[in-house]
């Protein structure tokens, strides 16, 4: 049913349609609205049978999900930012045990300095955890990806994060088509676990594994993600058959056929990029877009193919590999190894810094003229940075950097946009 609703509420409805059996909730912005809505559904008896557990930490949230999933229950939780970091040990454990938990990550920056706004640092920090990561461009896609995620996770017996931009998507009201229960039921069969804690057939799960088999177990996780590369497009196609729309898949291109400059990004910023590309196309620029939906597994071949006919590319990413540059850009460059393509990395939108059409327009023009440095920090206030660097050169006790820079920039609460 078509609705004007909040992204978080829509995702909660989608989760409910997937018939989760155990939901673990710990509050952290900006994922709170999702679990709040689910909690209400369970409490009101509208989502049954389902256990909704208010845990004492994100570490416990993932741990309860691990226990529930190992006992054969379809398990779900949601988190963001510091919460994801607080549960990291259990995040790796869930993947290592091969438990098909689905978790929403309402992407948010990581402190310090503490910051509640959107970027992709949180889930990207879990790149190597063994979890698959699917990035939603819109709230409609966030809804659809959750349904596909349960199917894929349970097929492969591996966990999946569905990543949606915190606030930008989670708190946005927009038009969303909420699927019908019978559609979801025909797409997502009941959970048939590969391993289950059952007194009728006792197994030991999580035993110590020494050097004699550890590599094989780890390779299996890699093999599963390689299988996912095959399965994700198939599941997206099946999804389209039942739900009637394109959603998910590994990658998505826009105006790429004759594009000489390709812009690569993940998540909701793709919308702003597409609007910018429309403007630039109208001015005659040959520019296109490559959206990455599946960040893990990373679709190397598909990315290579999508970039095969362009002359240069810009990876615009809301993440930073400190001391290196881009995180997504590294993967993209890996995909085009040997192609001789010119690649640029643009770090943008960290901690919720707005990414505007005006900025992107300028950035892409520079990329087209091949005037960009290898790594660009988009809209960085160099004056503030240099002032702090000078201060640190001049004074041993220069004080806390973040507080100094805030002071230099003045009262920002009086500004917006």
């Amino acid at each position, binding site marked *: 049913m078509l609705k*004007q609703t*909040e992204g978080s509420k829509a995702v909660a409805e989608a989760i409910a349609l997937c018939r989760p059996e155990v939901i673990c909730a710990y509050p952290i912005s*900006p994922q709170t609205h999702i679990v709040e809505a689910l909690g209400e559904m369970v409490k009101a008896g509208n989502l049954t049978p389902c256990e909704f557990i208010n845990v004492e930490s994100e570490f416990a949230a993932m741990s309860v999900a691990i226990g529930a999933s190992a006992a054969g229950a379809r398990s779900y939780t949601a988190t963001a930012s510091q919460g994801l970091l607080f549960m990291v040990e259990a995040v790796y454990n869930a993947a290592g045990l091969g438990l098909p938990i689905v978790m929403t990550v309402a992407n948010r920056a990581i402190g310090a300095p503490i910051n*509640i*706004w*959107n970027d992709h640092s949180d889930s990207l920090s879990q790149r190597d955890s063994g979890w698959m990561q699917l990035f939603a461009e*819109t709230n409609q896609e966030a809804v659809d990806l959750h349904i596909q995620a349960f199917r894929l996770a349970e097929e492969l017996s591996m966990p999946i994060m569905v990543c949606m*931009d915190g*606030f*930008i998507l989670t*708190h*946005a*009201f*927009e*038009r969303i088509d909420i699927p019908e229960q019978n559609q979801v039921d025909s797409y997502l069969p009941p959970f048939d676990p590969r391993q289950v804690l059952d007194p009728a057939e006792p197994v030991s799960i999580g035993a110590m594994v020494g050097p004699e088999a550890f590599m094989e177990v780890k390779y299996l996780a890699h093999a599963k993600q390689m299988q996912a590369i095959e399965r994700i497009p198939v599941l997206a196609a099946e999804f389209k058959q039942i739900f009637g729309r394109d959603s998910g898949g590994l990658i998505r291109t826009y105006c790429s056929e004759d594009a000489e400059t390709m812009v690569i990004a993940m998540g*909701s*910023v*793709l*919308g*702003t990029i*597409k*609007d910018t590309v429309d403007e630039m196309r109208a001015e005659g620029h040959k520019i296109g877009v490559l959206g990455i939906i599946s960040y893990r597994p990373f679709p190397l071949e598909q990315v290579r193919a999508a970039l095969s006919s362009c002359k240069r590319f810009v990876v615009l990413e809301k993440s930073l590999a400190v001391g290196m540059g881009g995180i997504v850009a590294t993967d993209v460059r890996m995909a085009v190894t040997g192609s001789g393509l010119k690649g640029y990395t643009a770090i943008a939108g960290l901690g*919720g810094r*707005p*990414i*505007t*059409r005006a900025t992107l327009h300028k950035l892409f023009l520079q990329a087209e003229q091949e005037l960009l440095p290898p790594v660009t920090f988009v809209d960085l206030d160099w004056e503030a940075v240099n002032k702090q660097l000078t201060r640190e050169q001049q004074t041993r006790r220069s004080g806390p950097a973040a507080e100094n820079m805030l002071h230099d920039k003045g009262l920002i*609460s*009086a*500004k*917006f*946009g």
Partner: protein
Amino acid sequence: MFEIRVHGRGGQGVVTATEMLSVAAFEEGRHAQAFPSFGSERTGAPVVAFCRISDREIRLREPIMKPDALIIQDPTLLHQIDVFAGLKSDGYVLLNSRHSLEELGLSELITHFDATRFCTLSATDLGLKHIGRPIPNMPLIAGFAALSGLIQLESVILAINEKFKGKVAQGNIAAATEAYNLVKDMMCTPFASSPLKGENHA
């Protein structure tokens, strides 16, 4: 695309106002996108929320920096932040106040804009009168519908009925209806056409 920025303070229903606006637009078959400025949720702190309305899919995710319309829920904000920043020269402004624009010291400012598109409405009083609480957002949305002609009062009522039930819904509808009529009466020339008309539908 028509872009609306709503200014208010935490607790006044700023975010709800944009959400309701988007629902009203949705009821008319339009695409709408409402989103807050994502600050910490402290009562009384300045809050900004945004709403885009269009006849085609809205992909843009940047904040609204050049609004077509402003709804200002709290006139004390005028002295605190530059609420008019980026307002288009033909933009609409609806201010929640018992005072006139002149009394609020906006006479000079109005000269840079189309004065017929500026309006004040005592929305808090309407909220108190019909809902029993000093919540100005429903009268403001209806007032905005009247001022801009972008949305029909019926759509605002539909949105209210979707969000509220029983007495609360009735009170909000009464407040919205009175606000709509008040603003209509205040306006010299009724707008014959929607501001979205003529948008490129390509």
